[in-house]
C-alpha cells in the first residue's frame, strides 16, 4: 500500500528529473502530499489535490499528478497549479501565488456529466457508464513516444518536445519491417 513517504519520494524524484523543486513550506507540502495520498486511496490514482476528480480514470487522466498542465504552468507562472512543483527562482524567493486554471472548462463539465445525461451515483466513485472519449493514436515526431488518448500532452513526457510535435498515426498506415 502506498504511504505518505512513498508519495513524497515519488514527488521528489519527479521534481529532480525535471529540474523542479517541491514547495519549501513543510506544512503546505505535507498537506498537498496528504491530498495526493487521499485521492490515490479514493480513486486508485493520485489525481491533483487542488482539482475535483470524477473518479473515472479516462476523464481524469489529464489531472493525474503530475498533471498535463504542470510543465506549461511552471514555465509561465513559476509553479504548478497547486504550488507543489516549482522552478528554482520561485523556490528561492518563496513567493507563490494562485495561478489561473489551465484545464479547459469543457473537460471539467464532461467529467461531472454536467449538460449530459443523468447518471446514477455511488459513494465516492461514481458507478456510471463512462462517457466515451474519442481516442487517437499519436506519436512524438522527436523521440517516437506514442500515446493513445484524446489529445496530445502539452509536453512530451520523454523528450519535452512541445505538443505541436505530435502527429496522429493513421490506422491505415502500413508499417514495413525487414
Amino acid at each position, binding site marked *: 500500500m502506498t504511504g505518505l513517504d512513498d508519495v513524497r519520494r515519488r514527488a521528489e524524484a519527479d521534481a529532480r528529473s525535471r529540474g523542479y523543486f517541491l514547495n519549501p513550506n513543510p506544512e*503546505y507540502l505535507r*498537506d*498537498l502530499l*496528504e*491530498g*495526493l495520498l*487521499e*485521492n490515490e486511496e479514493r480513486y486508485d490514482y493520485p489525481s491533483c*489535490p*487542488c*482539482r*475535483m*476528480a*470524477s*473518479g473515472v480514470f479516462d476523464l481524469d487522466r489529464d489531472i493525474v499528478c503530475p498533471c498535463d498542465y504542470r510543465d506549461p504552468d511552471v514555465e509561465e507562472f513559476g509553479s504548478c497549479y*497547486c*504550488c*507543489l512543483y516549482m522552478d528554482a527562482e520561485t523556490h528561492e524567493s518563496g513567493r507563490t501565488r*494562485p495561478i*489561473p*486554471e489551465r484545464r479547459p*472548462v469543457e473537460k*471539467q*463539465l464532461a467529467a*461531472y*456529466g*454536467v449538460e449530459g445525461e443523468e*447518471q446514477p*451515483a*455511488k*459513494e*465516492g466513485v*461514481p458507478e*456510471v457508464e463512462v462517457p466515451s472519449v474519442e481516442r487517437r493514436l499519436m506519436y512524438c515526431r522527436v523521440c517516437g513516444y506514442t500515446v493513445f488518448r484524446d489529445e496530445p500532452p502539452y509536453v512530451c513526457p520523454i523528450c519535452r518536445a512541445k505538443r505541436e510535435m505530435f502527429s496522429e498515426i493513421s490506422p491505415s498506415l502500413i508499417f514495413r519491417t525487414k
Partner: protein
Amino acid sequence: MTTKRVEGERRNHKVFVYALSTCGWCKKTKQFLRDNGVEYEYMDVDTGKMDEKRAAIERLRAKGAPLAFPVVIVDDNKIISGFKQDAIKEALGL
C-alpha cells in the same frame, strides 16, 4: 456531503466557501477566515457523491463562478476565485 459552519465573531457578512478537502489553497483560505474571526460556512465538494458534486458545479456555474477551488462567495453575490487575501479583506471590510 454536508455544509459545515465555522463560528466566528465577525458575522456582518454571509460567507460561503466551496472547497476541496485535499486542496492546499482551500486550507489556506479557511485558515485565513478563521484567523480573522470570520464566521463562514463551507462545503468540501470532493467528499460528496457524484450527484452532489454535479449539483455543486451547477450552482457555481449558475453564479458565474469559475470551476476552480476555492470559491468564496460573500453575501451571495461577490465571488472570489482562489485564495486572494486582498480581495477577501476588501469584500469583508477586514
